[in-house]
């Protein structure tokens, strides 16, 4: 078996989720090649080559791949991937964008968002917002798979010494062009990689009130998330949404504040190790899955919590 793993990065550094995907690849077994496609992404390649378990790093460095345009990346990955038994990447907004195109170009199906490798052709994945877990066997010649990062522990960041090989073929389809990007910069850890997450819901009442979570997040080194209701109400930006259609998180500690606990939200956080719910409505469904529930007005509880940490 041979696996092509498509690395996720921003041309500057490798995204941590790539290390979780690598664990899934190691569970499948076989030679693992890591593809870094981007522009001026030399520093990413050095990090990639240091990952333990990687056979070689393929570097496709060209302006056509600078913004990870799905059309160009998919053409490249399908071209290279035809020689492998498996193609893996993360089930993130990036992977979800280009990987189905790869599968279609190769004429094979895709197994999305896997959380377990049961065999080299059989995988478990959540369906119906995580209310059921399907075991899926792929009969395709090439297995195209997107991996849920929180389903696998990350490999170490260092210890490997893979060789590096340049890919010369350039796929520039000219179908789409990059216009602009607004990336929210934050000093806090990334939501999907943080070991503690504190999230606010509709109960926060305004974006201004999310400041109450910031002080606590700073003391705990936590990332800040939100429910769909809070994002839809315009309190906070979309990239903070935790849930079935937002980000899936599984930190050691998840603190849900003013979140009632719709199934779509639970789908994004119920694999957290310890769940705390703070809500003034004692009948809120979030309490049914919380390890520790505090029935209290959040505007009273949050300042107290910050003071006691």
């Amino acid at each position, binding site marked *: 078996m041979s696996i092509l793993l498509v690395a996720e990065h921003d041309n500057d550094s490798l995204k941590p989720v790539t290390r979780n995907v690598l664990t899934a690849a190691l569970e499948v077994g076989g030679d693992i090649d890591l593809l870094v496609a981007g522009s001026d992404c030399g520093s990413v390649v050095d990090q990639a080559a240091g990952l333990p378990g990687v056979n070689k790093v393929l570097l496709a460095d060209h302006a056509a791949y600078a913004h990870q345009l799905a059309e160009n990346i998919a053409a490249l990955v399908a071209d290279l991937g035809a020689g492998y038994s498996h193609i893996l990447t993360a089930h993130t907004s990036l992977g979800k964008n280009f990987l189905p195109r790869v599968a279609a*170009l190769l004429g094979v199906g895709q197994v999305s968002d896997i959380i377990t490798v049961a065999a080299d052709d059989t995988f478990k994945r959540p369906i119906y917002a995580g209310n059921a877990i399907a075991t899926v066997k792929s009969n395709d010649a090439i297995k195209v798979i997107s991996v849920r990062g929180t389903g696998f522990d990350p490999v170490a960041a260092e210890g490997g010494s893979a060789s590096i090989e340049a890919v010369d073929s350039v796929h520039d389809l000219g179908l789409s062009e990059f216009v*602009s990007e607004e990336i929210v910069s934050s000093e806090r850890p990334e939501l999907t990689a943080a070991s503690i997450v504190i999230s606010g819901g509709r109960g926060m009442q305004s974006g201004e009130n999310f400041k109450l979570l910031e002080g606590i997040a700073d003391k705990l080194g936590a990332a800040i998330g939100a429910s769909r209701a809070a994002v839809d109400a315009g309190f906070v930006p979309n990239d903070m949404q935790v849930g079935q*259609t937002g980000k899936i998180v599984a930190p050691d500690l998840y603190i849900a504040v003013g979140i009632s606990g719709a199934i779509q939200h639970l789908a994004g956080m119920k694999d957290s190790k310890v769940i705390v719910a703070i809500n003034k409505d004692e009948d809120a469904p979030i309490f049914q899955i919380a390890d*520790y529930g505090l029935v209290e007005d959040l505007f009273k509880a949050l300042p107290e919590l910050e003071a006691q940490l």
Partner: protein
Amino acid sequence: MKVLVPIKRVVDANVKVRVKPDHTGVDLNNVKMAVNPFCEIAIEEAVRLKEAGKAEEVIAVTVGPGAAQEQLRTCLALGADRAILVETDTELQPLAIARILKALSDRESPDLTIFGKQSIDGDNSQTGPMFAALSGMPQGTFASELNIEDGKITVTREIDGGLQTLRLSLPAVVTTDLRLNEPRYASLPNIMKAKKKPMDTTTPSELGVEAENTQEILSVEPPPERQAGIKVESVEELVDKLRNEAKVIA
């Protein structure tokens, strides 16, 4: 401009599904079915393009059982001009659906095809980009804003970390995210009118597509149950438990 909107019939978003005792799937007997919420956003966006004078015709299409006519009627009531059912009793996987839609698209030649970004049953998030690849079209997935001018479409996308804006040549494929729009409710007069709008039925074989699944579902199990824990009386007790019992904070 012609807009094609492929939709899916799914379990209503408010239903909590149960796994069948024999673990072959989830129990869909007597469960309320609906248009997949993201597909509803896709229909709404297409209808708004028509209302803004940018599109002439909106076609809703689904690949599914005869009962999916109900969801197509909903789309017609929401403002689609006509509907097409590609009838099959096999629950097809995304690649097969994308191939069928490609064959239909070759017949209809839409300038824009708007999908929901994912269905809330399979949670695959595949069909839109697969269709785009098979059709050789560019794609703007997870769209929160669209703008069509000078024969191009500008799409603002919700990505990890923020927003990205792309410009695509037409014909193109867009998949909708939650904040693209807020779908309207169908009014009673529009529901009545929808009954008279045209609905065609065809089959995968009539479209010349051999629709086959390449994945087997070996079993479907309920997720591990999470038990409710305890209620604490105060913030002080909560902090104490997190420090000394759960040991998740220092």
